[in-house]
Structures are given as structure tokens and as C-alpha cells.
């Protein structure tokens, strides 16, 4: 197993011809409809075929798989080839993975985002592997003059058991290429899986632990220049004047150029440009509102109280339900902006030449980078190449191509190859944040404790729609109103791992707990009753799978011993995000008056687990990420200026703060539904609800460390004994 990066398609073919071309199978990773693979016998045909990814088997038996999606730690470079190799019955130690460059002619979705890669390509990858396997078997049978039905494939060989005949894939590849591609391919039965579902190590481990230069920031080229950009400190301001004389005179500085609101310092090394940037004197003037967090707090309240909200979903008659309610519960939850802060800050290499543009760097959306560059520089897209390096994290930040386009624009101005580097401070203060949001929830209960009315209003700052109106509990409540109101701000926002639901899940699952307690019901039982309702008497469309949600709920309750551990404060939370379902139970203890998250149990339904090791990573990482940001994450503003600029004030979770995590996957054999994000959303709610169980206080704002309830001195929870007993018997 090995990886190669930065290999263009042309190089890929070169590589193929060097090793002896053998069988090349063009298959469609990403177009809307899965097509049957087609055998392609050379670069010219391949390029003309209209198919967009290639599996090749060289005469030495090495199987090369071109992987189109950017790798940012979601482990796609391992799980994609695993799926192909499974159906191919390849020898895993002879599989080689090559990162593809951007190729919109041949690939349809070279994007990392939305937990979508494996669900999207599952069938296509299996088809590619299975078709090749079938053709190899046919080729062997022909050679031996034996019936193909009597032959099998195993670990890179075609075998005829009766005669003892055996041929390696490498030896068969060329002949197999002459076999017509099957139109009807049978997949393996999942009980015969040898790779899928197993823990397979990341194919890039060896390079990573040796410090190989895989990342965008590691890209160097003889003669390239280095640049940093000073952007306005405050959102809502623009450049008025620039005095760069002192900076230009500093050693190693080639130029200081201003474009748009960017003052770029260009020079011969990273350190020299970073140093010289401090010597540039820039004056700014107002160009909009320069907002503070205190302003946002007021804006939220006026949005929640106002009448500008857009209705997202409406069922029944909410007003009457609330009028008739025996009990009304009302609660508000709020979160701050967050920075994505992947460990590798934004950066990109660009070389704009008269005859074309070369872009190289870490991006979740290479296609967007190219489109935007083409538009800005008025250069046809086919004159722009984009090479995708490994990404040192993304979390949604690299869905935006701003930093790549900046590099291209700068290169076109200075007419030189340049690597643009964002310092950590640039990265944290440069915008595109998780939007700040405040929610107002209201629930109406009848005398029996049934939720007869539900209202949610979301108020967001550049959040788009801060609700997910079709998520639970929609479908289970007779009278429901979900709407949202928005404030437009100069502060830029973007998708942040599990967009919107990264906080909405906490708010909703905490509120659901509040309502359950007000109804005198066990929180899990309360949700199960609602889910049952959504199943048997749905109110409006139900856009989540009720059974899968019930499945993870029951599984985590069983595995964690819900309400069966005296003295342990437990909190439950369940959420559907993207296409998968995750339920969590948090165990929290008060240690010296401080809450300590001891353990989080997770039950995960992401369909078929492709790589058990990678899947566990996504769950453990997602939960820890969710916990860290719920506990500590905050980006606040003063007069348009971010108040946190680096990791000394922007707190991320660290080693001593992580809880134990126990993960259970539901084994239901349905097709994979994605796992890059779904483990994160439920975590905040599980912790908040466990905190309530321990203290009787509700956490309603993130980060928790700033929440008054969190900071208050410990007091024993005050719950009537009778309610408590009832809770314990779900």
C-alpha cells in the first residue's frame, strides 16, 4: 500500500505506461447516475471516453486507483480504494492510491464536504471493482479453456480450484482488457467482505510520521516568492491609505502591493514577509457597521421579538395549542462565532503566466477555486490547472476558495509564482466563521404531559437558515411553527463542520430535556414516544428515518446503562445530521465543585462501516471536537475586530480535557450514509443534560465555561423525589 500525491492525470498515464499498461477501467465516480465501467486501452481513449476516474492494473499486479476527492483527515484516500479493492478481491498490499488533480471533465464531485463522499460513490466504486474482477476471471477462463463459473478470484489471483490453476491479476490484466465490460454486475454479499468493515490503517501514515511534505504549505518551487496579506483588522472597514516605504526597504522584500482591501507583502522568505508586514502603515476608514458582540446580543433579542421572521415549517394551529396548554416551557440558547482553525492555516500557490494559470494547494473545492480564478482574471477555465495537496484539516473553511483566488490575483499583479501564507492570526481574524445564533424554543404540554405545541425561532447573523425545520421533533408534534430571522453583518460566515446543527442540536436536545422534565417523563422515554408518534401518526412530512433514530437511542441506552448507574450523572442526546444518526450518553462527575466529563457513549448508525478504524476516528474526533467547542470555543468582537487572534486566547480542547469515548456501530447493512460530521452535533446536548442531572442547572450558552450556570458554585440538584423515581423507570 502506498500513496502518491500531486500526480496529474497525464503523469498517471505515464506511470501506467511505465509499469505496463494492463487493464485500465474507466468508471464514473460521481456523475448523477452510476454508469457501467468501460475498458480504456490508452490515454487518448481514456481522455476521450467521458468517464472520469480510472482503476488500472499493471502487469506487475499493482492496482492503481486515482482518488479524486481532497483528503483532509476524513480518510477518503483509504476508504475509497478499500471499496474498490473489496469487490476486486485485490491484494491490499498491492494497491496504490493516487490523488487526482482537478479534472471537471472526468470527475463530477471533487468536493470534500457534507459527509457525502462515500454515500455518493459507494455503488460506483463497487461497480468498478466488481466489473474488473469479472473481466479478470473471464480472461483466465479463456486462457485455461475452462468454464468461468468454475473460477474464483482471491487476493489478486484468479483460481480454478479443481485443476489447481492460478494466475495473478498482473498476468491477466492485458487479456482482461479485451473482454467486453459486463452490463450487469453482481456485488459481493456483505458476509463475504474481507476489507470493508475491518480496521485498515491510513494509507498515508508512513509519509505522515516521517514528515514528508504532503501539505499545501509544504509546497516549494525554485524561484517562487512568498507573501502575506494584511487585511482590514475590523470587519466593516476598508483601506484608506498605505505607507509601505519602510517595509519595502527591508531585507528580502520584493514588493508591497495593494489590491481590493489587501495589502500584500511579497518577498523571498516567509519570515521576511511576516516581519516586514509589521512595518507597513495602513489607515482604514469605515465601510459599514463595525459591530461588537454586545451589539449582537441586542440584535438577537430584537430579531426574536420582532416580526421579520421567515416561516420555515408550520403544522396545525400553534396559537390555540399554546392557549390550551396546561404548561408552557420557554427557553433560549445562544452560541458565538467560531473560527475553523484547521491546524494548517490557509495558503495557496499560484503562478499566473501569459499562457495559463497553475494553482496548487489545500482546498475542499478545487472546482470553485478554478471557476472563481477564471472569472476574476478573465482566463478560460481550461487554461487553469489545480493540483490538490493534502489538507491539514478543513472543517468547512476550505470550502471557500477566497485564499486561492487571492493568491492567483496576487500572482497576476506581481507576475511571478507566489505562495500566499496566512499566519495563524490571519486565519483566525480573516473571517468565514461559524455564524452566531440564538434560538427561542417554546413547548406546550397538555395535562398528561404530551407535547401538543412546539415553536422554534432562530435568529442568526449571516446564518442563512439557522433552523433545520424538517428535523426532529417535526413530524411528531400536532401544532408546530419553525421560523427564522436574520441579521446581515460585515462579519463573514461559512459552513463549519456540521453547519447549523453543530449548535442547533445542542439547543434542541437540551430543550427536549427541559420539556421531558416538565412533563415528568424520562428524557429518553419522552423522545421515544414522540418518535413513535412520527412513525404511526406523522404530522406533515417526516424527513428522517424514525427507526434508525429509535435504533441508536435504544442502543446507547442499553450500552451506557441508562439510569442504571447510581451516583452517575447521565445526559442523553440524539441527532440526525447529513444522512446518519448518532445518540450519545454523557457521564459527568463533579470534582472539587467543577464538572468533569468522564465518558461519552455513542451509538452510531452510518449504515455500512467501510473502515472501522477511520470510522472510530471520525466518531472519537467528532465528539471531542464537539465537546471542545461547546466548552471553550468563542470568537467575540469589539468594534468589528475579532478579540481572539491565536491559540493563546482562542481555546481549543487539549489532551487532559478529553473524556473516555465508547463507540458502538449499528450493524444493519444499509448503504453507507457518511460520518465526517454526524458524531459532532449530539455531544453538546449530552454534556449539557448530564450537567443538569448533576447540578439541576441548565447550560444555555456556549462556550459553557462562560455560562453563568456553569460558573455558579456547585449545589445539589433539586428535584422532587417523586419525579426522580418516576424517571428511573422508563
Amino acid at each position, binding site marked *: 500500500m502506498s500513496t502518491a500525491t500531486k500526480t496529474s492525470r497525464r503523469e498517471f498515464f505515464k506511470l501506467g505506461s511505465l509499469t505496463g499498461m494492463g487493464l485500465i477501467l474507466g468508471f464514473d465516480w460521481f456523475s448523477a447516475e452510476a454508469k457501467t465501467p468501460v475498458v480504456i486501452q490508452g490515454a487518448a481513449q481514456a481522455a476521450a471516453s467521458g468517464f472520469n476516474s480510472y482503476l488500472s492494473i499493471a502487469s506487475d499486479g499493482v492496482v492503481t486507483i486515482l482518488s479524486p476527492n481532497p483528503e*483532509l*483527515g*476524513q*480518510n477518503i484516500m483509504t476508504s475509497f480504494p478499500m471499496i474498490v479493492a473489496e469487490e476486486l478481491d485485490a491484494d491490499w498490499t498491492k494497491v496504490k492510491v493516487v490523488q487526482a488533480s482537478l479534472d471537471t471533465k472526468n470527475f463530477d464531485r471533487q468536493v470534500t464536504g457534507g459527509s457525502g463522499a462515500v454515500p455518493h460513490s459507494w455503488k460506483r466504486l463497487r461497480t468498478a471493482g466488481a466489473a474488473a474482477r469479472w473481466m479478470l476471471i473471464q480472461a483466465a477462463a479463456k486462457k485455461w479453456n475452462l468454464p468461468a463459473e468454475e473460477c474464483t478470484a482471491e487476493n489478486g489471483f484468479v483460481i480454478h480450484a479443481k485443476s489447481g490453476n492460478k494466475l495473478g491479476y498482473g498476468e491477466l490484466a492485458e487479456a482482461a482488457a479485451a473482454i467486453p465490460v459486463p452490463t450487469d454486475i453482481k456485488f459481493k454479499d456483505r458476509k463475504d467482505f474481507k476489507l470493508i468493515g475491518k*480496521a485498515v*490503517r*491510513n494509507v*498515508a*501514515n*508512513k509519509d*505522515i*510520521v*516521517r*514528515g*514528508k*511534505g*504532503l*501539505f499545501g*504549505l*509544504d509546497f*516549494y518551487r525554485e524561484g517562487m516568492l*512568498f507573501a502575506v496579506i494584511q487585511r482590514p483588522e475590523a470587519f466593516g472597514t476598508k483601506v484608506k491609505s498605505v505607507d509601505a516605504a519602510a517595509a519595502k526597504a527591508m*531585507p*528580502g522584500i520584493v514588493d508591497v502591493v495593494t489590491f481590493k482591501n489587501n495589502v500584500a507583502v511579497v518577498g523571498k*522568505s*516567509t*519570515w*521576511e514577509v*511576516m*516581519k516586514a508586514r509589521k512595518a507597513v502603515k495602513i489607515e482604514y476608514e469605515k465601510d459599514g457597521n463595525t459591530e461588537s458582540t454586545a451589539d449582537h446580543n441586542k440584535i438577537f433579542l430584537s430579531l426574536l421579538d420582532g416580526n421579520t421572521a421567515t416561516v420555515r415549517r408550520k403544522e396545525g394551529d400553534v396559537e390555540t395549542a399554546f392557549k390550551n396548554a396546561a404548561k408552557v416551557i420557554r427557553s433560549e440558547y445562544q452560541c458565538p462565532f467560531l473560527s475553523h*482553525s*484547521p*491546524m*494548517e*492555516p490557509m495558503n495557496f500557490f499560484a503562478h499566473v503566466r501569459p499562457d495559463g494559470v497553475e494553482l496548487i494547494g489545500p482546498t475542499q473545492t478545487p472546482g470553485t477555486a478554478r471557476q472563481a480564478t477564471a472569472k476574476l482574471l478573465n482566463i478560460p477555465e481550461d487554461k487553469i490547472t489545480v493540483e490538490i495537496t*493534502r*489538507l*491539514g*484539516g478543513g*472543517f468547512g473553511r476550505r470550502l471557500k476558495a477566497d485564499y486561492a483566488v487571492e493568491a492567483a490575483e496576487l500572482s497576476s499583479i506581481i507576475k511571478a509564482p507566489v505562495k500566499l501564507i496566512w*499566519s*495563524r492570526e490571519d486565519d483566525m481574524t480573516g473571517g468565514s466563521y461559524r455564524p452566531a445564533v440564538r434560538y427561542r424554543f417554546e413547548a406546550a404540554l397538555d395535562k398528561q404531559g404530551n407535547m401538543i405545541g412546539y415553536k422554534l425561532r432562530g435568529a442568526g447573523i449571516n446564518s442563512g437558515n439557522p433552523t433545520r425545520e424538517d428535523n426532529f421533533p417535526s413530524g411528531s408534534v400536532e401544532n408546530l411553527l419553525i421560523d427564522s430571522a436574520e441579521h446581515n453583518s460585515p462579519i463573514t460566515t461559512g459552513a463549519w463542520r456540521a453547519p447549523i446543527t453543530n449548535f442547533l442540536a445542542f439547543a434542541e436536545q437540551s430543550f427536549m430535556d427541559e420539556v421531558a422534565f416538565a412533563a415528568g417523563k424520562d428524557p429518553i422515554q419522552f423522545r421515544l414516544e414522540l418518535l413513535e408518534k412520527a412513525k404511526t401518526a406523522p404530522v406533515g412530512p417526516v424527513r428522517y428515518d424514525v427507526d434508525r433514530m429509535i435504533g441508536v437511542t435504544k442502543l446507547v441506552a442499553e450500552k451506557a446503562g441508562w439510569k442504571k448507574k447510581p451516583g452517575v450523572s447521565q445526559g442523553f442526546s440524539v441527532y440526525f445530521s447529513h444522512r446518519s444518526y448518532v445518540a450519545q450518553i454523557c457521564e459527568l462527575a463533579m470534582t472539587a465543585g467543577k464538572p468533569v466529563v468522564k465518558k461519552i457513549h455513542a451509538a452510531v448508525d452510518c449504515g455500512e462501516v467501510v473502515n472501522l*478504524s477511520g470510522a472510530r*476516528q471520525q466518531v*472519537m*474526533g*467528532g465528539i*471531542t*471536537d464537539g465537546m*471542545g467547542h461547546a466548552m471553550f470555543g468563542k470568537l467575540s468582537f469589539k468594534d468589528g475586530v475579532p478579540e481572539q487572534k*491565536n*491559540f*493563546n486566547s482562542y481555546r*481549543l*480542547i*487539549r*489532551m*487532559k480535557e*478529553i473524556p473516555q*469515548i465508547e463507540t458502538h456501530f449499528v450493524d444493519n447493512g444499509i448503504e453507507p450514509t457518511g460520518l465526517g460530521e454526524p458524531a459532532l452535533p449530539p455531544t453538546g446536548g449530552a454534556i449539557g443534560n448530564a450537567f443538569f442531572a448533576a447540578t439541576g442547572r441548565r447550560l444555555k450558552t456556549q462556550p459553557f465555561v462562560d455560562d453563568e450556570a456553569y460558573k455558579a458554585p456547585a449545589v445539589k440538584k433539586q428535584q422532587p423525589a417523586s419525579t426522580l423515581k418516576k424517571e428511573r423507570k422508563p
Partner: protein
Amino acid sequence: MAQFTLSINGKQYQPDVAEDTPLLWVLRDHLGLVGTKYGCGIAQCGACTVHMNGSAVRSCLLPVSAIGEGKITTIEGLSENGDHPLQLAWDEVDVPQCGYCQAGQIMTAAALLKKNPKPSMEQIDTAMHGNLCRCCAYHRIREAVKLASTKI
């Protein structure tokens, strides 16, 4: 600009850089040793961790002029064939996610094991607390350090 003679991974280098240049950027921009990463530049994340005379230091804040005779080891020089017990454990436990922080994590762990070959979990946690992993691969980092410590 000045010429410095640096001993890195057992080799002598003579980069011509300003004396306040952090070792991190000398390694990356001038010597082609890109395994050492930039994460924060203010000694908060540990991505840039290297060894000086066997101790873990943050190369982002170490001016080249302060190194003197100090012997520097980077991730590229941790072992000859990438087979330091930590590197092997990192693969066995399958630690890396994006992988960007991992060289720094390994260098911090290597300095720990050099001083304390059999650390307790608490000692591991304390030693590793200064290294951020934005992907939150912490559980496996801890496990891999422990595993490597059984093989030293």
C-alpha cells in the same frame, strides 16, 4: 544576514539568514526540511516541535542565533528508516487524521520517552497537553505513546 552553522539531524548546514529568523522557517524555507510544521508561531500548538540536545523545543520561537552549538533533531532525523518505536506505534494505532500536527506530537512524545521511558498515563497527558490536534486524535496519540513505551 549572517551565516550560521547548524547541526541538524547529524549534518552541518550553513543557512544565510537574519539572526532573528525562527528555526522553524530556516528548516522549512531554507533547508527543505518541511516535516516541522507552522501552526501558531507563538509556542501554543506544538506543531513546530523539534529537539535541541534531546529536549523538545518550539522552533517557531527559537531564533537561529540562539542555537549555537545546539544539536537539532527534526522529524526527518528522528530515525534512519522511519522506524522509531513512536513512528511504528503511530502507524499501528492508526493515529493520523489530517496528519498536520503529528510530526510535532511525535517529537514531543520522543522527548518524553527519552527522559522517562515508562511514563504513566498522567505523565503522558501532561507531556502532550501542549500539542494541539484540531482533528482531536488525542485518544490514539495517548495510546500510541503508551504502546511505544512498552517497546523501548
